[in-house]
């Protein structure tokens, strides 16, 4: 078991290194940083000075080593726009994104799981058909447009909920959170719902598929033959088998929620790192872009690693494989 964890850890490290190479090459070779960094009107001496300052006259491998060394120190250079450490700028925005993504995840699970369970247990009922058609809509609706319609309906027409910003926040553990104040919650609700829409459909469909895979199994019939109540069969025998896909969703899709928050944050002016990256791309703020990409790589690889660990904890069969 320990060796398999170590092996997975080394694999994860390898992926991270591979991604640093890709990000480095993408930013420094395909895109020309000189064009970005230097005013086109600058004279020759000015150009040479900037090139030397950023080490762009060094051979590529040398630049990569410097890049890696910077990475390890958490030094991505200073943001062109904010004039401060790019990593710091990102980290300041991170709690807002985290809060938004977590809220969306909770909504997706709280709504998607029961509906998926119902649709799986009663596939022929009218309600199930409505749920399944709704989930197709949930897949098809473009998130950004739904966000706009939320604003139009709840903020403009009905005036129930605010349409931008985080509202009032409370500071805990050095980070600001919205969900603890009433005003903050009101601000959080629409963006979280918007971000959750697609994942809710996904959770719903996966849950239904899982239920329909488990229900015809002999062990469910055997459980009935033992005289167990339907409640026990569903809450223990079916749900325990569903935990594996659900953990996968929670783990892997959480990363994707953070990535997709780019859209939702832009619509609802949510001050997270998704909005930051869009602004940075528009303003060509290269250090922030690189810091964001590396942060996302780290989040994704980390989540993959954690999900792998959860598998071994949840599924006894995988655990046995690991022992061998």
């Amino acid at each position: 078991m320990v060796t398999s964890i170590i092996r997975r850890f080394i694999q994860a490290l390898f992926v991270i290194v591979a991604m640093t190479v890709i990000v480095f090459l993408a930013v420094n070779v395909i895109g020309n940083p000189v064009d970005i960094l230097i005013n086109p009107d600058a004279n020759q001496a000015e150009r040479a000075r900037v090139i030397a300052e950023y080490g762009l006259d060094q051979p590529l491998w040398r630049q990569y080593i410097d890049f890696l060394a910077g990475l390890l120190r958490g030094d991505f250079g200073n943001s062109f726009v904010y004039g401060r450490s790019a990593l710091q700028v990102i980290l300041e925005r991170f709690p807002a994104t985290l809060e938004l993504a977590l809220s969306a995840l909770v909504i997706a699970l709280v709504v998607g799981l029961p509906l998926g369970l119902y649709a799986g247990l009663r596939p022929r009922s009218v309600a199930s058909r409505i749920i399944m058609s709704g989930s197709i809509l949930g897949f098809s609706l473009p998130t950004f447009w739904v966000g706009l319609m939320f604003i139009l309906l709840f903020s403009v027409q009905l005036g129930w909920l605010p349409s931008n910003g985080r509202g009032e926040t409370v500071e805990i553990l050095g980070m600001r959170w919205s969900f603890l104040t009433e005003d903050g919650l009101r601000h959080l609700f629409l963006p979280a719902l918007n971000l959750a829409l697609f994942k809710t459909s996904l959770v719903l469909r996966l849950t239904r598929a899982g239920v329909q895979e488990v229900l015809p199994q002999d062990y469910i019939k055997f459980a009935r033959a033992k005289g167990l109540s339907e409640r026990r069969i569903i809450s223990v025998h079916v749900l325990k088998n569903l935990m594996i896909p659900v953990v996968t969703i929670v783990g892997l899709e959480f990363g994707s929620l953070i990535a997709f928050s780019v859209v939702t944050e832009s619509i609802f002016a949510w001050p997270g790192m998704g909005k930051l990256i869009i602004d940075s791309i528009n303003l060509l703020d290269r250090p922030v872009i690189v810091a964001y990409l590396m942060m996302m790589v780290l989040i994704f690889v980390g989540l993959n690693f954690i999900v792998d660990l959860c598998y071994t904890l949840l599924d006894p069969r995988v655990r046995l494989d690991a022992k061998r």
Partner: protein
Amino acid sequence: MPNGDAMDPQLVDHIENAVSETQTLTSERGRNQLREFFRSPGAVLGLLTLCVIIIVAILAPYIAPQNPYDLSQLDILDSRLSPGSESFSGVPYVLGTDAQGRDILSGILYGLRASLMVGVLSAFAAAIIGTSAGLSAAYIGGRVESFMMRIVDLQLSFPTILMALMMLAVLGKGLVNVILALIIAEWAVYARTVRATALVEREKEYIEAARCLRLPGWRILFRHLLPNCLAPVIVISTMQVARAISLEATLSFLGLGASVTEPSLGMLISNGYQYLLSGLYWISFYPGIALLVTIVAINLVGDRLRDVLNPRNV
């Protein structure tokens, strides 16, 4: 590789046809699948809608009341008119106008053109690249295969929008770059599926027979493996067109895609965003409906295609 004159080419053809499962069954199976497809009312509705959308998009320059991107045709006095109002010169704007006095209906028609083009082009290019990669990986095997599949897995573990953002961050903004980003973000899906299908096919007897005939590798690939991998490619392609359209709209909305002079549905919706709070809903609403209908129609067709063609691994 065999030298061609060793075997009568007609004989090779004959044996090839006899051993290939697809060649003999295609026409009859195809007809049955077609009949099966039309049995679903949802799919038929989707297909009809899609046909209308495509025709309307193609004919946009002829049926649109104005060319919304020809600034000389726009009149600032007509700006922000609500749906149904008449222009300064008396022409009705069925769906209203935007801030530049652009007719929304015309914008939608031209926008559909751009969106469909982006969707089809990127899905088609990604299909060609991904299918070639998947097929060759399955055919070559060994280290090349595992290396290629490592890359595919790595790429698939990141969401498409992140890949697209990364590409746009590097390449810069613009519709062409969006198409490039979509291709790079989506080819891996094809590669993985085609490889999985090809792996199954590779083990079948008719491939063995084709190898025994010492047919050249490219011939086995294209005449025998490829036709059997087409079903999943078709299914993924429909879904991918829908995804690409949605993603392009999203990126354009974020200001990373189409420039103001390049019409696309995402651009129109984005234009209306700032007026939403002041109640000018139609600028964003109607293009959004057009986008939604297009995506749902494609998905309905794709869903049914998946059921009918029933490819594994999708």
